Each structure stands twice: as C-alpha cells, then as structure tokens.
C-alpha cells in the first residue's frame, strides 16, 4: 500500500511537471526581459532575483520597475501591487473547489504558486486535482521564472529580437491549447470564454480599466451570467 501510494504521488507530480513545461517556456522571454529591465532600472542582481522569488507575479514586477524609475514611494508601489494581484483571490477560491482536500499548510504553500498561468493549467485538468500535481506545475513554472530573471540580469540581454517577438505568443497559445478541448466538449465553455473575452475587451479598451480589474470583473460577470442562464434552464445541456 505504502509503495503504491508513493508511486501514485510521484507520477502525479511528474504529470504536473510536464504540464508546467509550457508555462516554463512562456515565462522565459518575460522573465529574461524583467531581469534586463531591473538592471537598467538600477536594481542589484540579488534584489532582482529576490523580487522574482518573493513576489512571483509578472505584471506587478514590471509595474514596480516603472514606478521605481518614476521615483514613486514604496507604499504606493506596494498598494499598486495589491490592486494588480487581487484577481488571484478569485482563482484561489475557484481552485479550492477543484483541488483535493489536504492539510492546510500544504494548501497555504502551493497557494504561493498561483498565477494566471498555473491556475489555468491546474483548473482545466479533468476531475479533481491532487496536491502533488499542483506542486509539479508550480515548481517548473517558479523555477523558470526565478532562473530566467537572474539570467536576464547577468547576460544583460534578452533573446534575439525576432525570437523574443515570436515567443511572446507562447502563453497565449498555451491558453488557447487549454481552452479548445473544453470548447469542443461543452457548449457552456464557449459562452464563458466568449463573454469574458468581450467584457474584458470593453472594460480594458473602452472603459480603460486597469488590466487586473478588467480581467477579474469580466471573469466574474461572465461566470455569474452563464451560471444564472444555465440554472434557469434547469441544468439541462450541462454537457
């Protein structure tokens, strides 16, 4: 029994690592550029790597560099970071419905690794997800983020311009790769993704909401509307 449990855990972990590789690839160009920008902003190598290790949130790390360069105060930078990253609250709540029950400290530990990307990979997996799987996804993604930030700083250059440009599609392609199988299976997901896409475009491009708020309000609105609509129809066509 003991050994089969260990084997199951390690294969879950390995599956997670494999699923995280797309994220690792996608993080590379972003983190390399972050390292480079941090250097030009005047941060030290240790500070740069420390930020990637402790904050681990791409958009807010970029924003903090911008604000530092503008001479913004620390309190304002921390507050902005909070506002940008508050959307993870919704993802964490959603993940709580999806993940297996486990010890609190383990959940508190893998919660640190929740990003737009790791959440997307974990939450679209069929069935319940195990703690080991989540750790697998988190570790490769986190490793890529931290190491690439350091390399970007040390090498002082990002990837060749054309490769950098084409690699900027990586995370979007991953999101599409995660979404399409679900689109083919459940009509409901077409509504969810389509509505959220439209709302997000309106919120960010027309109403000029900041990216974090636009995403969270578009997501929530689409999720509530679709749920209401499907409930009204008595849960028919759930598949």
């Amino acid at each position, binding site marked *: 029994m003991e050994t089969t449990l260990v084997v199951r855990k390690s294969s879950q972990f390995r599956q997670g690592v494999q699923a995280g590789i797309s994220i690792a690839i996608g993080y590379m160009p972003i983190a390399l550029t972050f390292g480079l920008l941090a250097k030009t902003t005047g941060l030290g190598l240790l500070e740069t790597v420390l930020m990637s290790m402790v904050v681990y949130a791409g958009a807010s790390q970029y924003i903090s560099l911008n604000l530092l360069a503008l001479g913004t105060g620390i309190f304002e930078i921390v507050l902005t970071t909070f506002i940008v990253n508050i959307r993870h609250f919704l993802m964490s709540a959603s993940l709580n419905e999806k993940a297996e029950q486990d010890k609190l400290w383990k959940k508190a530990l893998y919660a640190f690794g929740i990003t737009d990307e790791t959440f997307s990979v974990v939450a679209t997996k069929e069935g319940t997800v195990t703690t080991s799987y989540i750790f697998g996804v988190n570790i490769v993604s986190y490793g890529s983020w931290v190491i690439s930030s350091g390399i970007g700083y040390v090498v002082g250059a990002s990837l060749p311009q054309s490769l950098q440009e084409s690699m900027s599609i990586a995370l979007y392609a991953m999101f599409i790769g995660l979404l399409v199988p679900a689109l083919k299976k459940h009509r409901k997901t077409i509504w969810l993704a389509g*509505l959220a896409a439209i709302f*997000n475009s309106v919120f960010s491009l027309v109403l000029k909401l900041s990216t974090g708020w636009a995403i969270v309000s578009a*997501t929530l609105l689409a999720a509530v509307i679709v749920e209401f609509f499907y409930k009204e129809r008595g849960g028919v066509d759930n598949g």
Partner: protein
Amino acid sequence: MDKMIVLMILGMGIVTYIPRMLPLVVFNGVKMPPFLQGVLKNVPYATLGALIVPGIFLINEDIWFGVIGFISALVIAWFGANVIIVVLTAIVVLSVYSLFM
C-alpha cells in the same frame, strides 16, 4: 542590497500572497451554496477567455502578428494537439512570419 528596496519587495510579496492564500485556507472544507459553486467552477474558462482577448491582438504593433498566432494555435489545438505542441507551433509560425516582415 538597499534596505528600502528589500522592504518594498517584502511588502509586495505579502500583499501578493494574501489573495492567493486566503480562499484556499479560509474556505478549506467549507461547502459553498450550489449557485456559488457553479460560478466558481465557471471561473477557469471565463478567465481563459479574458486572458486571451484582447491581449493576444496587442502583443505587437502589427495586429496580424496576434491574428496569425491566434489562428494557428486555434487550428492546431482543434485537431487535438497537446498544449506544448500548440505552443511550439505558434512560436515557429510566428518566427517564419517575422522572417518575411
């Protein structure tokens, strides 16, 4: 290391960690009302829609860059390709595209 910068990093780390951690810890083992459960189960697919659009069309000044990336990822994913293959294909297609631009 500059003390203020380290302080800033710690502050950023804490305020980023809190929203990531709170729901998983506070709602641990809590059974949500069915409607809310449904909404939370909808969140991943809605998030994906919002993460893809409009961002993908804005990654390059040349909007065709995003459009071509979008279509190639969509087509290959539709034929059942693994996520990693979808990612690599999109990168290769756009590398070829930028060669000719």
